[in-house]
């Protein structure tokens, strides 16, 4: 197990280095002179030179990359050009919106998907099953930002249960914060839950066809007991895979949803970075998001090996 974890860790590190090289190349090398790009067409040569100095663009490419990557490791993400504050400060502030939103959405989708998938598998071929499959098919087809707009229309404008956007912060207690994140989290969770419920259902049906389930039934366990005691645990592997794979969709979804609800999270930060041509902000936030995706993949791999020893051999 330890050896498996170590090999996966080495490959995690290599992936992070490769990803950082790609991001560095796209942001700092392809535009030619990032300083000139950031200042636009009307910049004076003096201003460009001054910005080159502040951004540390005068070294060789290798020096600049090592500077940037070394900074990231120390938690120094550079200085935002448009906000004139360290990027790390901006990111840290916004993480307190984006991270709870992602976790809230993930928890909601799991809480919805597990029972729904279980019921569909237990009632396979029945009316309930067909109903659930139909609704989840629709859930996959609905773009989450449009679903978010519909939620606003119903729950914020017509019923006035929630506000249509904005975030009060956590200083007034947890409740107002969670209330503000509820509609966004529901909007994010819908497609996730639909996919997860379908995977859960087919994984359960697959395991229910196995010999050990027949043995369990022959021993005298009821269908429900066989399902919850034996099938559920074995069906968790494919479900875990999908949760891991869906994480990158969750991140992309969160970036868009934050814009629907005007939440001051990483997604808003990245778009402000783009419109203000603040490449330093874009570069660091993108690296952070990719870091999150790669780390989740790593954690899922480790979780597998813990759940299923057969997978450690690969």
């Amino acid at each position, binding site marked *: 197990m330890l050896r498996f974890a170590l090999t996966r860790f080495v490959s995690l590190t290599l992936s992070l280095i490769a990803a950082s090289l790609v991001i560095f190349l796209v942001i700092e090398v392809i535009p030619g002179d990032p300083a000139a790009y950031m200042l636009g067409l009307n910049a004076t040569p003096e201003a460009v030179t001054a910005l080159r100095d502040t951004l540390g663009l005068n070294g060789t490419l290798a020096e600049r990359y090592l500077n940037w990557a070394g900074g990231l490791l120390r938690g120094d993400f550079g200085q935002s050009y448009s906000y004139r504050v360290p990027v790390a400060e901006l990111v840290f502030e916004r993480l307190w919106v984006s991270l709870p939103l992602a976790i809230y959405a993930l928890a909601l989708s799991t809480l919805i998907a597990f029972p729904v998938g279980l019921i569909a598998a237990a009632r396979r071929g029945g009316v309930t099953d067909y109903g659930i499959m139909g609704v989840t098919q629709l859930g996959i087809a609905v*773009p989450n930002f449009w679903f978010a707009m519909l939620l606003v229309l119903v729950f914020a404008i017509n019923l006035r249960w929630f506000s249509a956007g904005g975030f009060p912060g956590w200083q007034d207690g947890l409740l107002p914060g969670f209330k503000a994140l509820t509609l966004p989290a529901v909007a994010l969770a819908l497609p996730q839950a639909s996919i997860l419920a379908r995977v859960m259902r087919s994984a359960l049906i697959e395991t229910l066809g196995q010999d050990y389930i027949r043995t369990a039934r022959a021993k005298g366990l009821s269908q429900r007991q066989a399902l919850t005691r034996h099938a559920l645990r074995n069906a968790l592997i494919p479900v875990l895979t999908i949760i891991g794979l869906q994480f990158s969709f969750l991140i992309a979804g969160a970036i868009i949803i934050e814009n629907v609800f005007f939440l001051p999270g990483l997604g808003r930060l*990245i778009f402000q970075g783009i419109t203000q041509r603040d490449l330093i902000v874009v570069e660091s936030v993108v690296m952070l998001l*990719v870091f999150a995706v790669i780390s989740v993949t790593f954690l899922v791999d480790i979780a597998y090996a813990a759940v299923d020893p057969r997978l450690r051999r690969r």
Partner: protein
Amino acid sequence: MRVPAQLILGAGLSVVFLAVALLSLVWVPQDVTTLSIADRLQPPSDLHWLGTDHFGRDVLSMLMVGARISIAVALLAVGIGIAVGVPLGLWAAAKRGSWVDEVIMRGNDLIFAFPSLVIAILITAVFGPSAVNAIIAIGIFNIPVFARVTRGGALSLWTLDYILAARVAGKKAFRISLEHILPNIANLLIVQGTIQFSLGILAEAGLSYVGLGAQPPTPSWGRMLAEAQTLIYTAPRLAILPGLAIVFMVLGLNLMGDGLRDLLDPRLRRAAR
């Protein structure tokens, strides 16, 4: 062989959207680039079947052109994924276990770590937003998907006797991949292509919603939704119609994909149902 009902329904929906998109090339009820403030926010009428937006443009015409943009972006992105991903997958399978295989697969993992929106953000930060950049971003995202499906399908074929026979007959890996492997994984690729097509429609809508897709004055479903958001109190119709278009288009493609999978690969039928 019985044709699955969902395939008929899905293909029907998809064909309707495709027909509307093609029709918009030669005819739309009203020009979508001329603004007429006097006609702004009109309810549905004989002249404007689905009403007008805040610039007085005909909503039906914009939806029709939007269908064309969505389909074009998603289709070209699938094309990029297939054109690059399939040869890579075939190559990796032919050289299975070698460093070529390893490099291709690790490269795939690397691209997988970038959500399509993040690729689009990177491209846009440097080159500015456009429909072409949306195509490239979604296309890059599609590459590892097709490479993986191709490699997986090809690997199981390489162990079969008829491939061994071809090798004994002196055929090189390149010819075997092209003449024996590719035709036999075509089913897999068609099904995956349909799924990526539908994901592409969703991704295009998301990108144009946040302003990273087709730029004004070209109408796109995503941007119609973005513009409707501020008008949601006064004209909720503008926020509902483009969303329904996206849902039905994606639903049609997903049903078609599921139906095709059932039809083309009976082995998957049991697990999928």
